[in-house]
Every structure is written in C-alpha cells, then in structure tokens.
C-alpha cells in the first residue's frame, strides 16, 4: 500500500473525531493528533481501533503510546503491514 493511500485512509478515519478543522485541512506527516487536530486522548483510542479494523492489523500498547503524529501512525501501519 502506498504512503499516499495510507494517509488518505487515515484522514478519513480521524475526521469524525477532529475538533480543529484547520488542522485537517493541513493534514500531513507532522500533524499532531492532540494539538493540531484536537482529538482528545479518549477518542484517540477509537482512532486506533478504527485503524486496526481498516488495515486489519493489531496495535499494541507501546505502539499506541508512540502514536503522537500522523507520521508516527503511518510508520506503525507500514511496519505492521510488512510483518
């Protein structure tokens, strides 16, 4: 799966949880889920579960804790998909 496709799917997943739409308009690798998109930490759990379903992968606690930006999420998804 291309990076672009991963990012496109990720953007669709996060959209319902985003509170700051400017952040969504400028969706890129260094976009921070909490600060730029204002997704609260409880909803970030829902994002992660939606990512698991969308990409058919399992995300462990350590990966979850390291998932602060869109780029972090993309790397984790790529790593899990290649396993």
């Amino acid at each position, binding site marked *: 799966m291309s990076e672009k496709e991963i990012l496109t799917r990720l953007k669709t997943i996060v959209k319902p949880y985003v509170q700051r739409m400017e952040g969504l308009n400028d969706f890129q690798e260094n976009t921070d889920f909490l600060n730029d998109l204002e997704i609260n930490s*409880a909803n970030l759990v*829902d994002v992660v579960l939606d990512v698991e379903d969308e990409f058919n992968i399992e995300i462990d606690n350590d990966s979850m804790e390291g998932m602060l930006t869109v780029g972090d999420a993309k790397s984790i998804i790529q790593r899990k998909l290649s396993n």
Partner: protein
Amino acid sequence: MQEILAQLPYSSPFLFVDEILNVDSDSIEGKFTFSPDLDFYKGHFKDNPVTPGVILTECMAQIGVVGLGIYLLNQEKKDDLKAKIAMTSSEVEYLKPVYPGETVTVHSEKQYYRFEKLKCRVKMFDSENNLVCRGVIAGMILKDRS
C-alpha cells in the same frame, strides 16, 4: 459482587448503586432505588420531583462502566486499585421519567476495553421493566500524575 460494591469509589450522597446482580467480563447488571429523600428532588423540579437526566447517566455510569471496570481490573489482578478514573464520553437518550422512590435496573454490555478505556452500551429499566434510558458511556483509567 459484594467486592465490587465495596470497591466503588463513591459514597453518599453520590453513590447510585445498591446492588450488583450479575457480572462477567462482557456485561454487568445492578440496581438502585432513588430515595424520595435525595436532595436534588427539592429543586428538580420545584414542587414536581423528577430524577435529573444527569443523575440517571451517573447511575448508569457507576454500575455499567465503573462496576464493570472494577471487575475487569480485579481479573487482571492489578494491585493499584486506587487507580483514578474519569468518564470520557456519554451519549444518552432519556425515554421515560424516573420519579422518587423508583427502583431501576441497569444493564451494561462492553463494546470494548482497550488501552485503559472501557466503552459500554448501557440501558436502564424501571421496576416494571420499561426501558427508561439507553446510551453509550465510556471511561478511562488515568495515569498517575503525582
């Protein structure tokens, strides 16, 4: 089940659980009777006491999310049962009024418990088994920041 009751982090006047009826890792059921003496009936509403929706939500959360959460934590045998918890979201429909003296039964089913977050689909029934409210409530265990 008595153990769960004892571990609930509430006390009067903000404990809205009398009894846990059933519990397993996917669901829980409990009861509470709204005593006519509860203080909020004096003001909600003036001369027309009805249980406030926020209190019904609280009752559903205490039984359905916190009660089930305590059971799940006990199963993990985590020692830190002093864990701090917080409600993180609630979306509830209120279908029928609950008057003073009513005994309600709360039934909750786990949607998921992942990354310290427990999300449940919760229903409340009155003593005649009418559905009075239903919704989705979630809570999280907070990391110790001390």
